[in-house]
């Protein structure tokens, strides 16, 4: 076994991950090679030194600051409209449901609510088409004029829900664009191989975005690209050597 064979295995050897013969051959080489022995000794000193680094205690007032931030966040949360709070609770589960299903459920809820809060007039329902119909007609989704104070605006809810996926996609696209700019700034510090890996992976992810025809797959593709760009910018070799987590 040569030095070139042993060096890549030293970390695993020192961490006790090489058992049986695999450990024996490394140990045998170390007995006869002063250079590798020195490297192993250095790495062991480093490993022990890292493990012995002193614990860093947070400032005593940190918990109070966190409580203050949570209190502020709770006050802000309480001011949000109830349907928005409900929507935020649903957001993490959105991938499990089709956006159309969510819009349909919202429409049913709105109709049920109206039927219990005020007399339903057929003409009103017809005048306010479902989000899908509204989207297919390309009607602008800007919020209509505000209703009088105290009167719930059901038109706002349905229009806003219909526009939500497109807004989310646009936000993902903006974020990815910003990250691409940031990646261009750090790119000069990469090796040629890393740049090539990065370019290939970004092209692949971009193609996935272009291929997606619906909002949900498109959002998923954008999220994959954002995740990779973040990794590439800050995690260096983890993302740049392997193309990141696929």
């Amino acid at each position: 076994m040569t030095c070139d064979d042993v060096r890549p295995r030293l970390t695993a050897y020192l961490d006790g991950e090489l058992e049986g013969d695999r450990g024996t051959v490394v140990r045998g080489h170390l007995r006869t090679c002063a250079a590798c022995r020195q490297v192993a000794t250095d790495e062991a000193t480093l490993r022990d030194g890292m493990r012995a680094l002193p614990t860093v205690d947070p400032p005593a007032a940190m918990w109070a600051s966190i409580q203050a931030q949570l209190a502020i966040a709770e006050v802000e949360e309480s001011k949000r409209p109830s349907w928005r709070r409900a929507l935020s609770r649903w957001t993490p589960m959105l991938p499990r449901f089709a956006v159309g299903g969510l819009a349909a459920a919202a429409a049913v809820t709105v109709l049920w609510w109206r039927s219990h809060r005020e007399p339903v007039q057929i003409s009103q329902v017809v005048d306010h088409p479902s989000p899908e119909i509204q989207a297919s007609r390309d009607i602008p989704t800007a919020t209509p004029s505000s209703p009088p104070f105290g009167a719930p605006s059901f038109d706002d809810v349905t229009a806003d829900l219909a526009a939500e996926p497109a807004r989310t996609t646009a936000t993902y696209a903006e974020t990815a664009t910003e990250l691409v700019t940031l990646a261009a700034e750090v790119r000069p510090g990469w090796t040629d191989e890393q740049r090539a890996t990065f370019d290939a992976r970004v092209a692949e992810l971009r193609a996935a975005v272009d291929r997606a025809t619906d909002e949900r797959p498109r959002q998923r593709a954008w999220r994959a690209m954002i995740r990779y760009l973040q990794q590439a910018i800050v995690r260096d070799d983890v993302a740049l050597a392997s193309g990141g987590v696929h």
Partner: protein
Amino acid sequence: MNELAEPIGSPLTGPLAGPLAEPRPRIAAALTDDNELIAACRRGEARAMERLYHQYKRRVFGMAHRIVGASDAEEVAQEVFVRIFRALANFRGDSALSTWIYRLTVNASLSHLAKRGRRHEVGDDGLTDLPAPPPAERDSALASRIEAALAVLPPGYRAILVLHDVEGLSHEECAAILECRVGTCKSQLHKARARMRDLLGDSLRGPGDAR
């Protein structure tokens, strides 16, 4: 040591500073496992939230401290805990609570560095400015040089070294936190240690060690 006995102070001012009626704890027994702790935190029980904070504060703060540096560590650690308490309702238990919290910490730290657009805390010159370690103080001097070398490393290497070597987590835990394969984790640790060895050079050797 009873960590809950630590004084926590109350810097709240204005209307937020007043006493707040708390939900009555539904768990009479001690909060012995993560599920009970999570459930109590979700109900907004102050005792459980404080317990969770004290359970993880040192590791969260320590990781942030060594990844983003001393000056920003508190800001990042606070952000992590606020996120933890606000996102606990959506925690599905796909991974251990600790893994989830450490992942939030590493991601928040790395995002913080990305937002700040700073890849390195200090330049390589920062190491040469450190005094050569006198034999009697070699251990503490070595610790200082290790901290300085850590700050010079690329953030990805820093993260794996902090998780594996400083915090003593297994490769499997590190891989779950960094969302990469165990093999990738091992190879990154090997490269990161090699970079540290290069940076530290003779500092790793005692006075009588030959090169």
